[in-house]
Structure formats: structure tokens, C-alpha cells
């Protein structure tokens, strides 16, 4: 059975302001999903609502046919839906090793702690060299590796990445994209928000363009998409 995340008519926001307006999308039927769209149109809000950091006002979120809308972030983590947030500062005063150990905090991940740690080191060998270094002393790319590694320690059934390459130098970005592809090949379905649509297309054939808190366009596998079409989706005709 494939892992699915179904979002129906979801409305959420901050204070009195709604950011998402009855948004609906289905994730998992065609493997990885990429989300893209202009800044400030609700991608991050959508992810924060899915992982329980924001309480939805209306609508349903079903993860593997279990309703998770309104659950605490902790309960959602225990279901195996793991979210790596944007520009993650993580835990500045913990070492890399401690962060990864903390990733194994959810009960369902504890039994696999050793295996997961080995897997993370295989994906990000650089982390092993800096095991005792504090997160605050790491570069942006290394910190992103620790963030993703920590999420992998939680034995994710589905992994949500919010702009993993934000602010990284091109060379480091390339390395990280390769690692993310590697994670996907290990069978963890990914939901990735990215501004770099080229990278999204490498990762997934199923994309959503989010605009004004709604799905503006869904691109399913088989539908091709060229650069000029993306430009027109972003900027209008």
C-alpha cells in the first residue's frame, strides 16, 4: 500500500487572517510530490498545518486514511509524518550526534535507532566527521543535512521538506539535491517545496502550483511542462 496524504477543503491561517482557502490536494498516488509557487502564497502555511504547528480552521487532512487534522505535532510525528521546516536553525547548542539521537525520540522510531543512524551517515558522510560539533557552528548546507538526518532518525513514512536548498551555494545545493534523490530512492515518499522547478521535476512527476492559498495548477505524470509554461504560471500570460 502506498502512503497517501489527502487534504480536503483545508482553511488555515494566522490570527484572523486566512492564508489557505479551502485547498485540496492528494499526495502519494504518483510517488513524490513537488509544491512550487510564488513566495507568500501559503506553501509553508500548508506544511505547518499538515504537521500540526497550526490548527486548521476547517477541512480534513487524512494520512493513510487516518484523520490527523487538529492533532498535536507530537501525535502526527508518531504517525510517521515528519516535517523539516524552512530555514531550520534546529538546536544550536546540541551536537550533531545529539540532534540525531533526539530525532529518534518518537516511540515508533526507537527500535530502529541504530539502523537509522547508520543510514543517515551513509547518506551524509560529512556528518560523521563533525559528530561532536555544535549545530550553531555549522554552515547552512551542513545544518540542512543535520535537519534532514534528524528527520530520517524518526523513521518517516512520509517526509516533508520545506525549501531544503534555500540560501545554499550552487555547488552545495547540487550535493544536497543528490542526497534528497537518494533518500527518495530508499522508498521514503517525499513532499518537497522548492523554488527550483528543475530540481522538482527531477524528483517528481507530480507537481502542484500553489497560488493565493489555493491549488492553481496540478501537473500529473505524463503531462510535460517546459520552461516557458512555468514562467507563465508564475507571472501570468
Amino acid at each position, binding site marked *: 500500500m502506498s502512503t497517501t496524504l489527502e487534504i480536503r477543503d483545508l482553511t488555515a491561517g494566522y490570527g484572523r487572517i486566512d492564508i489557505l482557502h479551502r485547498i485540496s490536494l492528494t499526495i502519494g498516488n504518483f510517488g513524490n510530490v513537488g509544491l512550487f509557487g510564488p513566495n507568500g502564497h501559503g506553501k509553508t502555511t500548508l506544511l505547518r498545518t499538515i504537521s500540526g504547528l497550526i490548527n486548521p480552521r476547517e477541512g480534513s487532512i487524512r494520512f493513510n486514511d487516518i484523520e490527523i487534522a487538529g492533532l498535536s505535532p507530537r501525535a502526527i510525528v508518531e504517525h510517521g509524518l515528519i516535517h*523539516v521546516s524552512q530555514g531550520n536553525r534546529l538546536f*544550536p547548542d546540541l551536537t550533531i550526534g545529539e540532534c540525531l539521537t*533526539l530525532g529518534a*525520540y*518518537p516511540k515508533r522510531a526507537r527500535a530502529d535507532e541504530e539502523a537509522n543512524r547508520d543510514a543517515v551517515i551513509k547518506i551524509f558522510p560529512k556528518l560523521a566527521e563533525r559528530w561532536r560539533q555544535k549545530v550553531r557552528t555549522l554552515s547552512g548546507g551542513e545544518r540542512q543535512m543535520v535537519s534532514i538526518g534528524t528527520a530520517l532518525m524518526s523513521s518517516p513514512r512520509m517526509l516533508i521538506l520545506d525549501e531544503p536548498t534555500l540560501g545554499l551555494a550552487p555547488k552545495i545545493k547540487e550535493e544536497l539535491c543528490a542526497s534528497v534523490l537518494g533518500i527518495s530512492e530508499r522508498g521514503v515518499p517525499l513532499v518537497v517545496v522548492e523554488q527550483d522547478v528543475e530540481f522538482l521535476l527531477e524528483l517528481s512527476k507530480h507537481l502542484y502550483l500553489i497560488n493565493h492559498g489555493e491549488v492553481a495548477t496540478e501537473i500529473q505524470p505524463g503531462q510535460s511542462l517546459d520552461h516557458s509554461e512555468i514562467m507563465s504560471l508564475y507571472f501570468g500570460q
Partner: protein
Amino acid sequence: MDAAAQIIFGGLFQGSLYAVMAVGLALIWTTIGVFNFSHGVLMMLGAYVAWQLTALAIPFSVVVPLTMILMAGVGWLLQASVVRPLIGRPNIVLVVVITTLAAASLIENGTLEVWGPRSKQIPALVDGNAMLLGVGVSLHQITIIFITPFILLALWLFLNRTRTGLALRAVAQNEDSALLVGLNVKMLYGLAFAISAALAALAGIFLGGYRFMSPVMGADPLLKALIVVVFGGLSSINGPIFAAYLIGFFEAVCSYYFGLYWTPALLFAVLIITLMVRPEGIFSGKSRGLA
């Protein structure tokens, strides 16, 4: 020889007491990022609870752990009532100063109502006196000097070698990330206050065993603990531990050479100089910032 022995003994004893007080304060600061001004009152209440249990003819070996457990519960309740509702507010540091001061005032006056103003004393941990290097000392104080390092070590091991301890250290650093790795933030906040209050109660038992108790007995140790945490820095609990012993020795030296009258002024001079020269504390890498 006599002077040296007296200073060493005084420094170790005061240092032990301050260390037990200060790590409790530091624990709350590092997990929740707030300063608990009712810490001194929790210490006082611990001493009174121990006195009450002793008065009920419960053996003292039971009274000590029982007091710590009861006070851990008080700490948890205090957190649930005056700290937890405020979490997430932008001005939480300042607001919690006010709410914990208010709670301190209530508990202090409540203690006065319940137990009255007459000074009380609880039994010493170990009765009797001894001569050490030509100085007469009580076995109660010697016991405190010897068991404090074990208590501090136990706390250090808990924070650095257990999963829950790791979670406690992580939770204040980034609340979003803490939630996203599935930490039970509310439980951890409660736990920090419970451990802190139990340690304060222990300090109260230490103090109530050789000095007369009164409802205001917590004020002075709180002030000293404040000097210790400012001096040592609050980035981890190691800073306050070392700082507590340094301040203890400093106080012992000052009271020997300058007298008790000048000692508090000199301690505050240390506090002011620390804040001017190295506001993050002498054992701290970088300031956590009060924001």
C-alpha cells in the same frame, strides 16, 4: 593554618549550598528561558514542609525524599499556574518575572499564616560536631559538602546521558523544532520546574538544619544564586556549578578578611563587574540572549 582551614571549609560549604540552589535556577532558564523568582520561596517552603513532616513523627530518612517529591509537585503546579499560560507571548521573560514574584509573595505570606512567625529548626542530617584541621565543624555541614557533588553529578548525568535529559536541553533552543521531533513540550516544562523545586527543597533542608527558619529565609539564598548564575553564565548547568564554588570561596575569604558586614557589598561588586566585563558569564561561550 587555622585561617586557611576555615576559609576552605566555609567556601566548600557555602559553595555546596549555592550550587544546589543555582542549578535549579539554571535548569529552568535553559529549558524554558525564564527566570524563576519564586525559587527562594520554594526553598523556604521545602524547609517548612520538612519541619511539618518531622513534627508528624515521620523518620528523618523518609522526610528528606518525601519533601523533595512533594515539592516537585508544588513546582509542577507553580509552572502550570503562572508560567505555562504565558508561553508563546513575546514578552514572556518580563511577565514571568512578575508572575513568579507574585507567587513568591503569596507563598511567603501563606507560610506565615499557616506556620506563624516563630523561628523553627529541622534536625541536622547528621548530629554532632568534629574538629577538622583545628576548626570545629558540624557533621551536618560536612555531610552537605560530601553529598552535594553526588547530587550535582546525578543531575549532570541525567541531562547529558539520558534521552529525557537531552530533550530537556533541546526544548528551549527551538520550540518549533522541538515540536517537530515529537517532544512533549508541556511535560518537559513541568519536569524542569519539578526537578528545580525538588533541588530548592533540598537546599531548604540543608539550610534549615543549621539555621533558624523563617518565612523570609529564601530571599538571601535566591540573591546569592542569582549572583552565581550571572557570574557563571547560563548556557549549561556546568557554569553555575563551578561559579557556585568560586563564589562560595570568595564569600569565605571576604568574611574572614573584611568581615560579614562588607561581604554582600563585595559580592555585588563581583556581579556588577561581571555584567560590565563579560555579561554572558565567565564559563559561558555565547550569550543565549534575553529575548
